[in-house]
């Protein structure tokens, strides 16, 4: 396929994906904003005032980066898993499969679609957080790059979930039983320093812990993890997940009989 044809195909998938979540904005953009807004009010404002400081910051300041990251992770994942599974369910994925679009373009298009929603919700949550805390970004490069890489990781994970899913139940199992616990145990609401040694070790095995803390480092300038190690983990995840997706697409897993 010629380069400009590939670009047009890529652009087509991205526009279609963005148009999809924008069309149903009441389902895709509003609920996460309301949920995170409630976290700000209840945990950050009401409970947070009694907690005082966490990791050297006011509790509200401490949880804002984690909550922004949580919204990016959940929405990057859910956009890809729900959109691609809907394509499978309605069989409209066949439009793509009979066309000459290469697998990596299909995958990239859906990833960017997932990132677009994750970042859109992340931006809404960031703007909301300004009503509750004063944010001064300490390192813009780290802040932006970690949020982009994290949304790529979870868009890829959502794509794999969609490939294996056979029913709508299958696309809610992973977010409910895997993603949400990992996020809650990933240091969004507390500093790992508060944990006993065993649970500190368990937290070190949670990839979301590194993502949340690196993002927190970008905004607050303080983190529980080594930033270089965190970026290395993110890149490894992206390479492994991207390769897995391409292999599954080539085999036609969940798509071709």
């Amino acid at each position: 396929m010629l380069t400009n044809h590939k670009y047009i195909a890529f652009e087509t998938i991205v526009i279609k994906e963005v148009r999809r979540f924008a069309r149903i904005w009441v389902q895709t953009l509003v609920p996460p904003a309301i949920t995170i807004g409630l976290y700000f009010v209840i945990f950050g404002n009401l409970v947070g005032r009694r907690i005082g400081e966490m990791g050297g910051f006011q509790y509200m300041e401490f949880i804002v980066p984690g909550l922004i990251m949580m919204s990016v992770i959940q929405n990057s994942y859910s956009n890809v898993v729900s959109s691609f599974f809907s394509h499978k369910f309605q069989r409209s994925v066949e439009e793509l499969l009979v066309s000459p679009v290469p697998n990596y373009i299909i995958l990239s298009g859906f990833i960017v679609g997932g990132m677009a929603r994750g970042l859109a919700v992340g931006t809404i949550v960031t703007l909301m957080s300004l009503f509750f805390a004063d944010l001064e970004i300490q390192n813009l490069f780290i802040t932006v790059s970690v949020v982009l890489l994290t949304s790529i990781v979870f868009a890829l994970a959502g794509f794999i979930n969609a490939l294996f899913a056979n029913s709508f139940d299958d696309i809610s199992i992973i977010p409910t039983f895997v993603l949400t616990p990992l996020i809650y145990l990933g240091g969004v609401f507390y500093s790992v320093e508060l944990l006993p040694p065993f649970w500190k070790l368990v937290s070190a095995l949670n990839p979301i812990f590194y993502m949340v803390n690196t993002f927190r480092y970008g905004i607050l300038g303080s983190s529980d993890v080594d930033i270089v190690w965190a970026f290395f983990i993110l890149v490894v995840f992206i390479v492994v997940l991207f390769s897995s997706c391409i292999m599954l697409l080539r085999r036609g897993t969940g798509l071709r009989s």
Partner: protein
Amino acid sequence: MTIAISIQNLVKTYANGFEALKGISLEVEQGDFFALLGPNGAGKSTTIGVISTLVNKTSGSVEVFGKNVDTHSYETKLDFGVVPQEVNFSQFEKVRDIVMTQAGYYGLPRKLAAERCEKYLRKLGLWEKRDERSRSLSGGMKRRLMIARALVHEPRLLILDEPTAGVDIELRRSMWEFLTEINENGTTIILTTHYLEEAEQLCRNIAIIDEGKIVENTSMRKLLKELDSQVYILETNAQVPAGFSLKQDNMLLNIIDENIIEVTVSGGQSVNSVFAEFSEADIKIDSMRNKTNRLEQLFMSKLEGNG
């Protein structure tokens, strides 16, 4: 003559062990209007699935205009368009968006895509519906939308899987006219259908598939020649007298009702002589129709032969 599609020893065994294709071989020439007939579960849709890469084959090869679909995926996919049996577009998208998106997948620049989109939506009578969501379309309109979508990149080969199933007679006829027109303009067409009349009306060559095997692959003319007799139902304006018979040998006459008779005419005999004999007896024939679809007779005999 260029071969539009060449299938060699194609085998497909599904994961549950069902052998859908048992080594079929088939060639369709460029410009042909080709029918793939067969009963339910014969392997028609699996064959189309393998050609369009939606079904992974077990073994064998498929070439489109001389290029292997596995090794030259990009070139071969540009050359064909597929109209599936079941609706396979998003029910929430607008008609125009569905066609434009497909054009985008083929790398068509937006201006050209918009021109093609309008051209085919107009040809298929959907232009007025362009801004409606696809779920609001009738069944026939959805099928026409799938044809417009398959043609937007102007492929040399169009593959249609039961395109007129469940479509009313008027719409079916208009789709036949459209398909005939694009075939006359050079597009090779492969059609699977349950409507044997459809194959007889449209197609020049035909293959009959049953239980994953090709049981007949010939021209429509040769196939129909195999029929050695045809049965006509005649309606007369007057009562046919008792004992009335035809002088011609090999013509059987069966009086069904006062004014309805059945005449069996052997191959090579003209029905003119039947009219002449009734005219001599001062009986006028008001109407005449073929008792059975000729192709249906043959189709059934081929399947029985295979069984």
